[in-house]
């Protein structure tokens, strides 16, 4: 009989006023008892809607049933067979729009907290030294993966499991892509990313760092070197700016730069070699998850932080949980507000951001009500730093100039949902194909592409 408790079993987390001054993980994870209690809330539906909501198709009721039976090793096996990076997706997936959004328990109460149980199972396995690194015997076929973010790592893991000889090429000195440079330590500890990467290496995946594909080797070179197929998972890394006056002032950062300095280069540590400005009052422009991450980092570095977003709270693209956490930590939301220029002092440091008030008009192409400027509403917010978190666009460096490779209007690699591109043997997925999206969609794309690559090589 299922546990009919209406609400999710709460997960312990650091107190907001404690955590907003440290970079340790916010959510502390379930205990065994809490995980079992939560797993028992699953009704074990015959036709589970949750699975349909999962981009990597985890057999959710099955792994939850194992947890309910306290067979965590069994749960891990089911989970890790379907999902190469469960400790990561358990932490950063927007479950409310995916598996949990479809959960039948969510109609009358709260859905089963699938993400929290997933995280528990993955962490439990790691603590007990269990890793699902079994692979099929080597089949002698070589595949190259460009980029070691969620798409690339997932694709590499799936292919290694099938017996392929996989080499992953990463431009940075650390694997993980956005998991390493973008998502902060307090949401996704880097030790966990390193652990998942180490598991792939145990499966025989060769991860080559400091390899900027498109520069040191082209995709054509990779084929010449004997790779039979190439997966492009190089992300969508080019930051956007607003093109307003003052964006060249000292103290204006792209969210990418700000987060990379903090997360990848550890600039938050006192002894770090890489500098970051320690600001007093920071404006973060944008309302997505990246904006929340940047804001919460700035807060932890001691600043008063304002999120400046041109629409209202209902339109914030960030996960509700991130907005909630940000508010708890004392981030100030200046909604229906849009910057028009950034002002600097005589030393070219940011001194203020000039904004206008907005009001919501008719719905635009995205279905959201479009913001309209309230005339004459200009006002200044005194700040000493501005972080632009406006989204990113395609970085074509890895694939530009590849003969025959078609691109989308926005410069991404044109690929279908199976990762198939205009060139036989070249596959693509994740942000490199879709533009900026989520970690789990990239993982799903990496998984589908691995299947397509397997079919392609077998059919040759």
């Amino acid at each position, binding site marked *: 009989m299922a546990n009919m408790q209406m609400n999710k079993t709460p997960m312990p987390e650091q107190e907001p006023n404690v955590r907003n001054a440290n970079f340790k993980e916010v959510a502390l994870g379930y205990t065994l008892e809490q995980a079992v209690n939560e797993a028992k809330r699953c009704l074990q539906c015959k036709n589970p809607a949750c699975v349909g909501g999962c981009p990597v198709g985890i057999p959710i009721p099955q792994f939850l049933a194992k947890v309910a039976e306290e067979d965590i090793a069994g749960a891990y096996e089911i989970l890790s067979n379907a999902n190469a990076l469960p400790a990561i997706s358990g932490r950063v997936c927007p479950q409310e729009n995916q598996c949990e959004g479809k959960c039948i328990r969510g109609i009358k109460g709260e859905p089963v907290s699938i993400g929290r149980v997933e995280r528990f199972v993955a962490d439990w396995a790691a603590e007990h030294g269990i890793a699902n690194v079994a692979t099929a015997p080597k089949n002698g076929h070589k595949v190259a993966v460009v980029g070691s973010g969620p798409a690339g790592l997932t694709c590499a893991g799936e292919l290694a499991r099938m017996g392929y000889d996989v080499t992953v090429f990463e*431009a*940075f*000195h650390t694997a993980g892509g956005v998991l390493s*440079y973008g998502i902060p330590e307090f949401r996704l500890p880097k030790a966990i990313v390193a652990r998942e990467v180490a598991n792939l*290496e145990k499966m025989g995946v060769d991860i*080559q*760092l*400091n*390899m*900027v594909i498109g*520069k*040191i*080797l082209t995709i054509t070179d990779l084929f010449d070197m004997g790779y039979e197929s190439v997966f492009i998972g190089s992300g969508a*890394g*080019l*930051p956007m*700016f607003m*093109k307003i006056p003052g*964006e*060249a*002032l*000292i103290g204006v*950062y*792209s969210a*990418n*730069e700000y987060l*990379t*300095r903090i997360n*990848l*280069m*550890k600039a938050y540590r006192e*002894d*770090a*070699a*890489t*500098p970051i*400005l320690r600001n007093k009052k920071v404006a973060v422009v944008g309302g997505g998850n990246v904006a929340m991450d940047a804001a919460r980092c700035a807060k932890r570095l001691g600043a008063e932080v304002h999120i400046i977003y041109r629409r209202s709270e209902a339109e914030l693209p960030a996960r509700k949980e991130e907005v909630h956490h940000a508010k708890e930590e004392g981030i100030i939301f200046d909604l229906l507000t849009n910057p028009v220029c950034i002002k600097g002092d005589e*030393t*070219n440091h940011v001194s203020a951001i000039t904004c206008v008030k907005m009001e919501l008009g008719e719905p635009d192409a995205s279905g959201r009500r479009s913001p309209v400027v309230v005339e004459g509403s200009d006002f200044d917010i005194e700040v000493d730093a501005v972080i632009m978190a406006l989204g990113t666009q395609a*970085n074509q*460096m890895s694939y530009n100039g590849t003969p025959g490779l078609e691109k989308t209007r926005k410069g991404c690699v044109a690929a279908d949902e199976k990762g198939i591109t205009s060139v036989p043997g070249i596959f693509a997925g994740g942000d490199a194909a879709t533009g900026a999206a989520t970690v789990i969609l990239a993982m799903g794309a990496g998984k589908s592409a691995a299947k397509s690559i397997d079919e392609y090589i077998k059919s040759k």
Partner: protein
Amino acid sequence: MHQTYEIVVKKTLTPEISLISVSAPLVAAKAKAGQFIILRVDEDGERIPLTISNADPEKGLVTVVFQKIGATTMALDQLQQGERLHDFVGPLGQATEVENLGRVAVLGGGLGCAIALPVAKALTEAGNTVDLIGGFKTKDIVILEDEMKNACTDLHICTDDGSYGFNGFVTGKLEELIASGVKFDHVFAIGPLMMMKFACKLTEKYGIPTTVSMNPVMIDGTGMCGGCRLTVDGEVKFACVDGPDFDGHKVDFDEVIARNATYRDFETRAKEKHACRLGGGAMNG
């Protein structure tokens, strides 16, 4: 597994400037004049961009020349022949466009001479008549003189204090050549921002197209951070992917000069801290 990169050759050119040749065969095979690399000295190190001074595909070596200006370059200078760099990434950026332009002047300022060298060499090989004008503060710190001599048609060394060669700045020498009737089809200016700014002011006056090599603060070198953005002809460009070469008459130098000071306080502190660890000796010289 994490590969590291051996320093095969290390030379001290002046008390402030050193040269290293690093074993990186794949980088050496692709590197072209004007491109740069990013390196990290150790596992917790900062990523610093350095423009490639020479690439030897046969030996698999990439040479960079650096000046001890901050904590990272000081730590880098501690490494000796046979020791290894933790990270070495490249070749990054666009190569300098090398074609037969006719008569060209290549201006190198101090350390910039190490970068001007491969550009001059490539231009000479492309059939240009190349005047290489290398500027230094004083005679004692002239670097790579023989190499530069071999890379151009005429080498003009300038010193700010007149202790060697032309007495004055590279722009002074360039103007002297122009005044003497030399018609330059193109000028390449590589060195400190102030030098490039004033070189551009001069060439603009004479209507000579001018290419400059920009090396602002950056992290990844692949267009991801946007830290190296600069304004060229009113548009935002990223030095790491769109450059490092730009039309010098269109670069907003004052903006770049201001942005380059972003971490000056941090650099000064780090340098002092590092000097303390070395017993203070590194600050002298």
